[in-house]
């Protein structure tokens, strides 16, 4: 199912060259609210990426809000997009989400578990956190 937030991202990235896509990701990364030092714990950290990353979630009125961060700016940019898409949804909705925008803006290969940025692990963590809230 198409989804407005993802479609908007796809439009923003549409037709851009690689370096321009990265420039855009860098500016998204810069806009991302840094995670508070106190949440950068072992528990919230994500293994399997070259740059350290952290994810946490909290509930607001039955909807999940995520807070995530990374040391690398491009990864921050991707995280920023990801949060736009998953934030403020019910756990069920998050689990049902098809993150097609990643493929369409050329980040599909980042979903491979072998990738150094650990995007696959971040998404897995987001799903796990949503799953924990479903029941």
């Amino acid at each position, binding site marked *: 199912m198409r989804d407005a937030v993802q479609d908007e991202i796809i439009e923003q990235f549409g037709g851009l060259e690689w370096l321009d896509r990265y420039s855009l990701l860098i500016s998204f990364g810069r806009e991302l609210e840094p995670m508070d030092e106190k949440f950068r714990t072992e528990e919230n950290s994500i293994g399997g990426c070259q740059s350290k990353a952290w994810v946490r979630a909290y509930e607001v009125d039955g909807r999940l809000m995520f807070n995530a961060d990374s040391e690398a700016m491009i990864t921050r940019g991707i995280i920023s997009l990801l949060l736009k898409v998953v934030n403020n949804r019910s756990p069920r909705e998050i689990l049902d989400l098809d993150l097609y925008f990643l493929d369409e803006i050329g980040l599909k290969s980042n979903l491979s578990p072998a990738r*150094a940025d650990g995007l696959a692990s971040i998404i897995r963590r987001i799903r796990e956190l949503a799953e924990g809230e479903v029941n």
Partner: protein
Amino acid sequence: MTDYSKDYSKDFPILEKEIYGKRLVYLDNAATSQKPDSVIRTLSEFYRSDNSNIHRGVHYLSEISSERYEKARAKVSDFIGADDPGEVTFTAGTTDSINQVACSLKPILEGNEVLISGVEHHSNIVPWQLAGAKLRAIPMDEDCNLLPDSIEITDRTKMIAISHASNVLGSVNPVKEITEIAKEHDVPVLVDAAQSIQHLPIDVRDIGCDFLAFSGHKMYAATGVGVLYTSERFSDIMPSRGGGGMIDRVTLERTTYLKPPLRFEAGTPHIAGAISIGAAIDYMQNIGMDHIRKREHEVYSYAREKLLGTDGVTVYGNTDLMCGSISFNLDEIHHYDTGLILDKLGIAVRTGHHCAQPLMRTLGTEGTVRASFALYNTKEDADRLLEGMEKVRMMYA
């Protein structure tokens, strides 16, 4: 209807070769198999266009290599019916796989007992000795078939390590019955599948083993690569080797390790080799493992019956389910002489103790002639062998 007459030898470039002016009849498959063109091309194309080190690479080639490597792992996982690719570790071969298990479990094995069989390959004997375990063999009948009912498990039995198929006799061992008995005593079972993975469909869940070991080079893939399946139950055992790629955090004082499979893959793995196992599985699955088994069985039984029907030939071993190897001797003629003359007739067999000295002692011989079959062998190959043996006998008459 499956077509048992298809000539798969066309897929294997080396089989076009003439040796001493005769078409090569390659019957040394238990030592190593030949490689189909598709596997050889996969290897060289990997080096020509994708080669890179894997894991954590930020660049394009590294991504492709990592993906191809992990895809090969997933393929192996499916091929053996594992629950998860994380249970599949790439090693340097069967011997390496077994040594890794023996080394990881050394603290438990040392001074205790490992149950093996009397038909084991040295690679499933010596690693346990090096780990400090005592070896005891499961009793066999006069045809060297294991008698699972006679298995005696004591408090000191910490492992049962059994070959799925004998590399000498070709007999398939009752591994499933053995794992069932082992489970009652909560003793782990390692199955050495070096001589079965290329001949029989294998399902680790069905077998119920905790470890399964095999080699790429005997299943139509590259040399220097193998597999160790480690059931999730043992995912937290200590790695036996340390190095790059398997650690979480290293200090001079203390190191923590990743989860399997990376935990068990220290250093740069045989990337091209792993990918070649994937290509070999594709090749076999295209034909179909059931088809391979039936086809091989036809040629194998044909050869075996002809040998049994020949005067002056002793054929070793005998059971219902057999595959791969047939061992025999010509009366009064040394196995080495037989092998040497067969070679000059273009027929490649192996002679000697086949890394199974304890079995040789049981058989009462220093060695045997072993003809071992693969999917490309035909009844014609068997006939060439039998004609060759006739020639040997005439030369000694």
